[in-house]
Structures are given as C-alpha cells and as structure tokens.
C-alpha cells in the first residue's frame, strides 16, 4: 500500500463510500470534543468535517449570514452540496459558529427529506469533577443513541479496542512531530497528513502513516530561513502553510485543532470507568480557547512548544468572525516576548483570497526574524 492518499487534500469521500458499501454507517462530526472512539465502538466511521478547497459558500451564507465564520459556513456548504454524503452529523458546542452548523443542517436536511442521524453533545467550558461528570453523561447518551442507530451497541470492550487504534494514531503523529523537529517534514506536508485522518478509515490511515514515517526518517533536513509555529483558528488548508514556507519559513509545530491539538497524548483508560476516562481525557486536554479556564495553560503550552521546537517566530492566524481564537494576543504576546519570540497576527478567511498579502507579510516577518 502506498501512502499517497495521505497527501490528497480534496474531500473525495472514497473511504466513507467504501465503508458504507459494507452496510455500515459513516457520520460526520465537527470539533475535537466529539470522541471518535465512541463512533468507532458503534462501528460507525467518524468523518471529521472540514472545508478544504471550498471556493464558494454562498448558499450556506444565506443560512448563517456573512457574519459567520467562513470555515463553519463552508462546512455547511459541503453538506448542502453533497460533497459530504454521510448518514448524519454529531456536533459538540465547541464554539457557537460550529454549533450552528448542526442547527442549520438539521433544518435543511429535514426540509429536503434527507434522513440523518443528528446529535448534539454538550461539552462544558470549565473543567472540574462536576463538569467532567456531566460530560460523561453526554457521552453516554451519544454512545447509546449511536449504538441504536448503527445496530452495534457501544460496550466497554468496544471502546477499549477503539482507544487502542486512536492511541496508535496519536503515537504515529507524535513521531511525525519528532520528524518536524528535525526539519525532515515540512509544515505543509504535516498538515496534509493530519487532514487525511479526517476522512480515512483509521486502520487504513495508521498503516499509511507508518509507511510514510519509515521513509521520511531517512530524509535530509529541510533548509529554512526561520523555524516557525502556527497557532489560531481552525486551519484546514495546507496551501496556507505552503505560502509561508515558500517564503523561507519552516512551520515545525502548531497549536491548531487540525494539527497537534487533534491528537495529543495517549488516552489512558481506567477499566472501572471507560467512558469516564474518555470524558476526562477530552475535557482536560487544552484543545482551544473555547473554555473559560484554560487560557494560561494554553499559553504555557505554546511557550513550551516554542522552546522545545526551537521556534523563532509565531504566526497567529485568526479567521474573521472567530471570537473563540480572537483574543489571545493580550496575554500571549507578552508571554512570548518574555522568551524573545515575536508574533505575527494575520486575519484570514477559509477561501484564500489574500494570498499575496499573506506572502508579503510572512516574508517581512521571516526577514525580521533572520536579522
């Protein structure tokens, strides 16, 4: 098997189609607070929805307005125009833009007479014992409903088997980051590889990634003018990173929900409370500033990553109308300054209309760092 598929950024739906031909279900989800382990344990293929290469989201804009985040509305567009042909949508209230994808899709699908499994998972925005307990009940409800829908009851054994697979993916991604640290994989390639996890079946993904890693280990390090980290709103377009890298930067790590944040440390299962372990894992990892009590921790992780990956500059990309990721500069910029790392802030839209401007700003930033 080749690993070419890891670099295909268009949404082909091929794996989901193959999965469905065997009579099984494939369900989309948005945001990192929907544990894929639960879908896998229900024998449902999880497809993380993304909007890569969406060039026009005007139909979805009619539903979500021009004041919405273009990433979120492009996902709705892909649901509406059939780019995604799935059996349903599971959504957590990561941010309100992502949440409204569900409201609108539920409404539109009903109107169009499309049968869909629609489920909303509530993910608390502060982390303590009580909120983890609540989230656990939400996950249990998802497990029960999905089990009914797919005909495969979600059991502890099923969940544990799924965790083995997702942990394997996490381990492989950790190895990918080691190669990034050694400059053997570019940021563009890395994002492509991680995006591939969204719509490939996990077994297929893990084997392809293993093969790639075996080959990539023997590469020569990439020459670059500056080692960079990219942080910010959902970024599902490798072309964005490519523009930066073409100007001589090398993006060696990130704090992105389609990047490192989607994988993280291994999920450790407590046999006595399997679903509780999943709840705790997903709620305590600092995926994004959607929560109210995780900012200092997220900032510390970014600062630590800068040190670990020998970063010379941070690019903070903010999707227009993304309030979730909009306000981090106030405390993060001084924290980075304290360790001598400059930060470039750039606004962006899902549709890459301002490539030229990004290229100019990235180049100027890289030049400044080099001096």
């Amino acid at each position, binding site marked *: 098997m080749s690993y070419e598929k890891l670099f295909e950024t268009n949404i082909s739906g091929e794996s989901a189609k193959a999965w469905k031909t065997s009579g099984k279900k494939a369900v989309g989800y948005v945001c990192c607070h929907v544990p894929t382990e639960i879908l896998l344990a229900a024998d449902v293929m999880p497809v993380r929805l993304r909007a890569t290469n969406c060039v026009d989201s005007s139909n979805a804009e009619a539903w979500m307005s021009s004041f919405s985040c273009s990433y979120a509305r492009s996902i709705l567009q892909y649901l509406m125009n059939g780019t995604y042909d799935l059996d349903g949508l599971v959504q957590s209230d990561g941010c309100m833009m992502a949440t409204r994808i569900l409201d609108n899709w539920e409404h539109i699908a009903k109107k169009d007479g499309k049968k869909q499994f629609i489920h*909303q998972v509530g993910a608390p925005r502060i982390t303590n014992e009580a909120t983890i307990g609540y989230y656990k009940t939400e996950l249990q409800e998802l497990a029960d409903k999905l089990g009914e829908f797919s005909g495969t009851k979600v059991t502890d054994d099923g969940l544990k088997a799924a965790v083995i697979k997702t942990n394997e993916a996490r381990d492989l991604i950790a190895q990918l980051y080691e190669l990034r640290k050694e400059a053997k994989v570019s940021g563009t390639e890395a994002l492509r590889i991680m995006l591939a996890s969204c719509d490939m079946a996990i077994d297929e993904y893990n084997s392809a990634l293993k093969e790639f890693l075996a080959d990539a280990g023997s590469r020569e390090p990439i020459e670059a003018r500056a080692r960079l980290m990219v942080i910010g709103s959902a970024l599902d377009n490798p072309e964005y990173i490519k523009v930066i890298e073409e100007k001589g930067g090398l993006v060696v790590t990130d704090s992105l929900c389609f990047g490192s944040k989607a994988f993280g440390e291994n999920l450790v299962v407590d046999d006595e409370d399997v679903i509780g372990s999943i709840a705790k894992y997903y709620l305590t990892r600092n995926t994004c500033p959607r929560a109210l009590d995780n900012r200092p921790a997220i900032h510390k992780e970014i600062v630590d990553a800068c040190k670990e990956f020998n970063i010379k500059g941070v690019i903070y990309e903010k999707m227009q109308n993304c309030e979730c990721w909009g306000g981090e500069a106030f405390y993060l910029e001084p924290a980075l300054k304290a360790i001598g790392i400059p930060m470039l802030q750039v606004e962006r839209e899902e549709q890459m209309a301002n490539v030229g401007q990004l290229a100019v700003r990235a180049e100027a930033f890289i030049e400044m760092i080099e001096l």
Partner: protein
Amino acid sequence: MANATKQNFDPTLPVNMIDLTCQQVDSIYQYMLTKGMPEIMWTVDIQKFYWEEIRDAHKNGKKLIAFGGPVPVAVLRAFDCVPFFLDTIPTRIASMEDLCGRFIDETEKYAPTSMCAIDKAQLGCAIKGEFGVEFDAFVHATLACDSARIAYPIMERLFDCPCYTFDLPFRHDTKGIQYVADQIDPFTKWMEELTGLKWDAERQAKIREINEESNKAYSLLIELGNLRKKTPCVLPGRMLVLNEIIAPLAGVSAVTEMLQTQLEMGNMLIDMGMTATRCPEERYRVCLMQNMLWSNTGIMDWMEKTYGAVTVMDGFGYQDGIIFDDLDNWERVKFQMAQGFLFVPMIHGATGPTDYWLKVIDKMYEEFNVNVSIFMGHVGCKHTWASGKIVTDYIQEKYGIPTLYVDVDAIDPRYKSNDELRAQIGEYMESVVGAERF
C-alpha cells in the same frame, strides 16, 4: 452621526465610569425636577437607585460583585453584597459616541473588531481601569456567546479578585437545567468564604424574601406584557429597554415599584383612551428581533411617529420571567433559578438550540398580534445571525410575514447612521409593508 450624543469629559484624562454615570443620571433627575415632570420621574429613579447603589457599596460596608451573564443575583444579595451587571456599562453608554469609542477602540487594539460591542465596551473599560470602583469578586457564566469568551478570561485576570464561573450547558431541557441547579449549592459555599457569612437560617430567610419580591416584579412584568398585547399598545417601544434593568435588580423593591408605576400608568392610559406611544394612530405592531438597539432607541419613536408602527415586543429579548412556585422548597427554587438562567433569550443568554427561539417566536407572533417583523441583527451576535434564516423562514411560513433584515450595532453608534437606518426601515415599510407616512 445624528443620533449619537457627546459627553462632557476630558478624553486625555482617566474616566471614572461609575461617578460619571451617577452624575449624568443625577443631572437628568434634577432637570426633570425643575421642569416638573412627576409622571415620568420613576423612569430615572430606578437608574439613580441602581448606579448609586454600586457607587456607594463600599461606603455602606457591602461587597461589590461584578457579574456577567445569568448568575444567581439573589444569592449575591442574600449575602448582603451589591451586584453590578457589567453589561449595563455598554448599554448605558451606547448612544454616547465618544465614551463608546474610547472603550471599544481600546479593546480593538487586542481583539477582533467582529467581537460583540457589549463585550468590547466592558473589556475596554477594564483594560483602561476606568470602572472607577474596585470589585470584591467577579461571577460569570460560560455563555454561548463566543465574544464573552474573549472578554471574561481577560477581565478575570485584570480584576485580580476572586472569581466564580457557572457552566451553562447547550441543552435547555430538564437535564441541562438540573446541571445548572446543581452548581448553586457549591456557589453558596464559595460565597460563605468570600463574605465570612454563613449560609444559615438567616440567609435562607433573606433569599426567600428576595425571591418573594422577585416574584412580584416578574408578575408585574408579565402583566405589562399582557398590557402590550392589547390593541392599540399603550406603552411605547422604548419602555421595553428600561425593563431590562430587572436582570440585576429582581428582588429589590425599587424595581417592583418601578414596574408597578409603569403598570398603573398603562392602565390609566387605557381608562383614558390614550397611549404613551408617539403615534397619532397605531397601524402596525412590530416585533423587533434580536437585541435591543441601545445605540439608537429613538428609532422606535421614529417608527411610531412616522408609520404608526409600535414595537410591541422585542423578540429575542422577550422576558417571560420565572415565578418561584414553592419558595420554601430550596431544591425547587434552585431548579427554577437555573431555568431562569437558561431561558433568558438574550442579555448574554442567547444560548442553546435555535428551536427554543421558535417557541419564543410563536409566543410573540400569536399573542402580541404582530404584523411587522424586523430582524434588527446586532452584528456582534454572530450565533444569532446564524439562526436568522431558520427563524425568519419560520415566521414567513407560519405567519405569512416577511422579515426585514437590518444589521446594526446594538452598542456602537458609529456603525450605522440614523439616516441610513431610517432609510432601510422606511424602504421596507413603504415598499414591502405598504405603509404610508403620517
């Protein structure tokens, strides 16, 4: 712009917002006294009470607690603290271009312009350190609203005082309500530590008293709502804005008295065959979604005067209110308090599934006999906009009323001029509704 007012302050010097507001309210009060306007003094009395209570909290030996979003204000008062609803700063300064600009521009140095101006204005005030009072604590909730997620964590650090966060779930069913209710007892423990007072029989008797008073206020608000259902509507649209002060003051006799006076005035007008609206004749009954246009409440007067279009209710700001049905049953009281948190449709509570708004829409359009529908969408409130088509399609299909979409900034008067707004509404009224000017 035409409708915005300038304030007398030196922009080069620090501002003390609480003192400035108290002075402004007092000068309106004095002006009305000298002009002999006893029939409307109550509209200022309540504002005077609210702002001076905040200003004098420490002088009166009370702790001052800033809050954001739906939190158990009654518990704060039971612990003898003064609650300060931070949203009342932006809503207060909404028509004042220079003050608004001062704080909003400050926030925009660090945060996106797309952020809701309610949060931008209060965060800007916090960054500049210009509230003019020190907070003993900050209590807030994890709102649906993404803008608050920028503002609250930063304000927590700036205020540098004890903070407590309620987690509000997306779901609005019994499970979600119970989840919130279960957070109230731990909060009373936290309040014990903060104040050094015990959650004992005395305090519980106090909260019972507050909730009893709150019941009176919300019963009056419901009666006022019923009054607005009558044709013609005797109360002007702008009165809806004033009533939102119930959020920080429910349970305080001053607000009950204000609502009582308003109700008496409404009933008296009915008896006299008169109305307090500005129109010679009511021709249209408007439901205004989604937020209140604090930056230009005069637009409602203009609609009344020009087309006889009276804003009978503000859709997403609709306040049904919670009436506690068993004041001696603490479990039940907590549940109903939590229900109150989740079902405040706007004022930071615009959370939850769009379906809930459809229920609110049914109430509005069926009971208030609405025939003009305006989605006056606050640009900062993106999640409300993202439900806009579901809601307005529903109105069209079920009630046969086309909705006008108009984008406004509920707080920042610089966003759209009065003339522009009038032109947009006027065109709709004349070409879609078929209204004629008086």
